[in-house]
């Protein structure tokens, strides 16, 4: 009771005091909260740098239901290279909808989730950019560099949005939050919106240093590389129905020039292809722009690659959940002919199924880096053999498993998170091989296949030399590795049409299961044909695809999320066909 009385008198005293204070000040109703951070607290150079860090953090702020870093749902299972996997067709059933195309709806929550998450990245970049622009170079000597970084990051998120949704609104750092929902998603034409993205990358390329001093901080080569990629996508002109109507030669010339600028940096191919996919090899010479993950960093679970967390198999050392599995079509594509070259048109006529099939056919060695095959060493561990009892649902999805994003159970990078595994292995967004093939593609499409040849052959040579880590303990290879460079006049006729076919196949082999395939097909304007042909055959092997169908002029892009159309009161225009 005494305490209560004291409490009451304290309130009375407080009330009197505040009355006294209030009478001295005109603004007594204005309250500055203690312990909370307001915008006015974030104007120092230190806070400005911290806002830039928060924008970088968005690169890896995701999980498998909402993937920003890895693109295995958006670019891989929507293509001919992979299946969803998991415990049943309805396990993460929204991915099944993407995989079957004709089950996608405009109000799927996952569409809106990725939209909002990517725009959260844009917004963090814009928030940081505003803070940077408010600084003076005297107080903040790194001003221009940070501006360029923010614009690089913003353009990265725009690129991902553009690949997925095509018609997207652009938020400028100077737009007030209230005015952002008034920005139309068709303000720019398809071509001009690529131009907006390219513009940010160009600013970054021209204003970033060659060496940023920190592995995870953007430098000018990142920006040139991404600029080359953007110009390549821009070069393939699309009409309103997503069909490629022409290829802009000026854009192709820009691709070549920017790719050259990127390749002038301190990058080289990893000696062994494997080094791109191991924890030990991360931030290696081939890695240009990678999302940096970390473990034992004081965060709750580590800043881990959680986008791939459900992709580990049910082997006892992992446990869950067997998502993202190579299609039979993908496995078959690694077949090579007697000359060690891909079977462009016939690869899918017969299937690689039994152990013996991998020994009697010629095989591109990248298979044993990309796909786990029963009886083959798993993930560069000669004594750990991938077993068919690691496979979760073979009756639906077959016996193959993914491997590139998986790390050995012994890796210091792995953290068990609930029933899943997070890995601190970085995810490469751009590695040098990609830049080389963008340049090669631009050269071929601009009528210069001969200059593309050494670029493609460099990757094939590297692949041929990458069989040291995939073998059994006794040194024998699980597959009959047979790969050769293209030698015009010897094993091929290297004209433009052939070279483009070779380029398309090379991308498929080099980036198998890495989440780029679907976007390549859309860029080339062949998604409908390739994917419906793929389904026609693959559904005879795997019945779950029986009703799948890709609708031309629609399924090249996801629908603009209905929620976003509602929240902008009908401002956003729905994509073609939806």
């Amino acid at each position, binding site marked *: 009771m005494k305490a209560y009385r004291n409490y009451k008198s304290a309130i009375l005293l407080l009330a009197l005091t505040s009355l006294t204070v209030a009478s001295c000040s005109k603004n007594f109703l204005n309250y500055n*909260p203690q312990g*909370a*951070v*307001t915008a006015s607290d*974030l104007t120092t150079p230190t*806070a400005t*740098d*911290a806002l*830039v860090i*928060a924008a970088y*953090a968005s690169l890896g*702020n*995701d*999980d*498998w*239901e909402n993937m920003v870093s890895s693109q295995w749902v958006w670019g891989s299972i929507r293509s001919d290279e992979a299946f969803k996997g998991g415990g049943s*067709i*309805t396990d993460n*059933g929204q991915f099944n*909808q993407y995989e079957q195309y*004709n089950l996608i709806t405009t109000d799927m*929550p996952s569409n*809106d*989730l990725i*939209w*909002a*998450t990517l725009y*959260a990245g844009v*917004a963090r970049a814009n*928030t940081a950019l505003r803070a940077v622009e408010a600084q003076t170079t005297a107080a903040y000597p790194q001003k221009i560099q940070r501006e360029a970084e923010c614009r690089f990051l913003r353009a990265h998120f725009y690129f991902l949005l553009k690949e997925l949704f095509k018609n997207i*609104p652009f938020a400028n750092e100077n737009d007030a939050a209230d005015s*952002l*929902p008034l*920005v139309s998603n068709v303000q720019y034409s398809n071509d001009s919106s690529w131009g907006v993205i390219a513009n940010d990358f160009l600013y970054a390329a021209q204003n970033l240093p060659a060496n940023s001093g*920190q*592995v*995870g*901080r953007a430098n000018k080569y990142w920006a040139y590389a991404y600029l080359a990629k953007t110009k390549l996508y821009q070069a393939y002109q699309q009409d309103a129905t997503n069909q490629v109507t022409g290829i802009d030669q000026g854009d192709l010339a820009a691709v070549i020039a920017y790719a050259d600028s990127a390749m002038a940096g301190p990058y080289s191919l990893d000696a062994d292809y494997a080094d791109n996919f191991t924890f030990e090899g*991360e931030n290696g010479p081939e890695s240009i722009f990678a999302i*940096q993950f*970390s*473990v034992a960093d004081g965060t*709750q*679970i*580590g*800043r881990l690659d*959680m986008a791939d*967390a459900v992709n580990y198999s049910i082997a006892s050392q992992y446990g869950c959940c067997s998502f993202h599995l190579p299609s039979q079509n993908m496995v078959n594509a690694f077949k090579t002919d007697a000359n060690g070259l891909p079977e462009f048109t016939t690869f899918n006529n017969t299937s690689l199924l039994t152990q013996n099939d991998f020994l009697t056919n010629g095989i591109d060695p990248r298979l044993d880096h990309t796909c786990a095959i029963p009886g083959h060493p798993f993930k560069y561990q000669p004594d750990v053999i991938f077993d068919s009892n690691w496979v979760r649902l073979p009756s639906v999805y077959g016996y193959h498993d993914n491997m590139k994003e998986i790390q050995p159970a012994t890796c210091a*990078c792995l953290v068990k*998170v609930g029933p899943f595994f997070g890995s601190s292995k970085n995810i490469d967004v751009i590695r040098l091989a990609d830049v080389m093939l963008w340049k090669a593609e631009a050269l071929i499409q601009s009528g210069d296949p001969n200059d593309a040849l050494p670029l493609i052959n460099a990757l094939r040579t590297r692949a041929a030399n990458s069989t040291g880590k995939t073998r059994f303990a006794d040194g024998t290879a699980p597959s009959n590795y047979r790969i050769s460079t293209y030698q015009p006049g010897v094993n091929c006729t290297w004209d433009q049409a052939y070279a483009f076919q070779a380029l398309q196949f090379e991308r498929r082999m080099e980036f198998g299961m890495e989440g780029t395939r679907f976007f390549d097909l859309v860029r080339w304007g062949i998604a409908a044909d390739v994917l419906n042909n793929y389904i026609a055959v693959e559904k005879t092997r795997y019945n779950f695809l029986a009703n799948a169908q890709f609708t031309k002029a629609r399924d090249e892009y996801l629908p603009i*999320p*209905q*929620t*976003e*159309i*509602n*929240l902008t*009161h*009908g401002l956003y225009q729905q994509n073609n066909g*939806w």
Partner: protein
Amino acid sequence: MQNVGWLSDLKLRSSWGITGNQEIGDITSLALYRTNYGTVGQTGFNQNTASYGNNGTAYDINGAGTGNLPSGYVLAQAANPNLKWESTREFNEGIDFGFLQNSIYGSFDYFTRKTKNILVVPPYAGIEGEGESETVNGATKSNKGWEFAIGYQNHAGKLTYNIQANIFSFHDKITYLPATVVGAYPGNVQQTILGHSSFAQFGYVVQGIYQNQQDVTGHATQPGAAPGRLMYKDLNGNGTIDALDQTWLGNQIPSLNYGLNVDLGYGNWSFAFFLQGVHGGIVSNQHKANTDFLGLNPGVNIGQRALHAWTTQNTGSDIPALSLVDNNDEERFSSYYIESGSYMKIRNARIGYTIPAKALRNQHVLDGINLFIMGENLATFYKKHGDKAFTGQDPENPGNNYPIPRRLTAGINLSF
């Protein structure tokens, strides 16, 4: 008035008041940033996702792969300098009465209520980024209702009785809806909740079940359509079933609520029961996900209704064909889940016998003995057949898988 013999009590009441709403966080008018070094949680900003995702502000910019990370700030809440109170103005008029020495008694009340500047944190367009959640003053809602209660107590010989009944009804309507808060309520681009009850339900309309492939091809394009699957109505007639084919499916507020309490005594016997019910109003029977669809919650037990699902031999069923997948998106909110919310329940009943005092007169320990049997939730009556028949366990708890238990108690009360 004192000379009016039949009238024992009469009171007119009237009240008026304005109240605020204190369900609002602190310093919601200010834009606030926060640091989130690295807890895991939901990664989505308009929806929930799995809770193992990064959403923090720290980043391994040095590429060290481990150790302390630099970290930044992210907006946690947006500013609204114009934030003000939500207010409810209520006006109530009532009359209490009693007739014939208060053997008949009761009351009647009528109220109107108007809530203005309703506080809400509306969802916002993705392009605004994280943390743009802003507390705003939005809609206006009007409420009207009445309640009538009447009782009758008397005795006739050894019979005493007290009967009370009440009946009430109310409805609400959103009367003002600024564009900023439209997204906080059901609706779509073309239809808002303005003019509807805040308890109105919005969704697709099920037209029937596709009987064959001709039905599928003859109907508007609907992803996942197949024989045996639910056919949704193309409300806007554009040839495609999409988000615009949704409409108002009904109101969850019953049109009438009622109760009846009866208390009877006859000599040493007593009997009482309480009956309560609602009439009109719809419920959303989400329990159907476990009785009609195998694909929505894989691995759980399925209700008996699944046995009566559509097959090519059982084409009369209104339950779609069994499927382990939900290709047709039948989980979407539709009239399929809308059922009648009307019910009447015997909430409790009690029968008792008091052993007469004279039977206890030869001892000095007990003052009284009362024996009774009591039951709770004895019976529920609801619509079991026909249009919008309720198919779950209990329309009062439509989403619940379990019925409310019926309880019977027998007891002896001893007074010392």
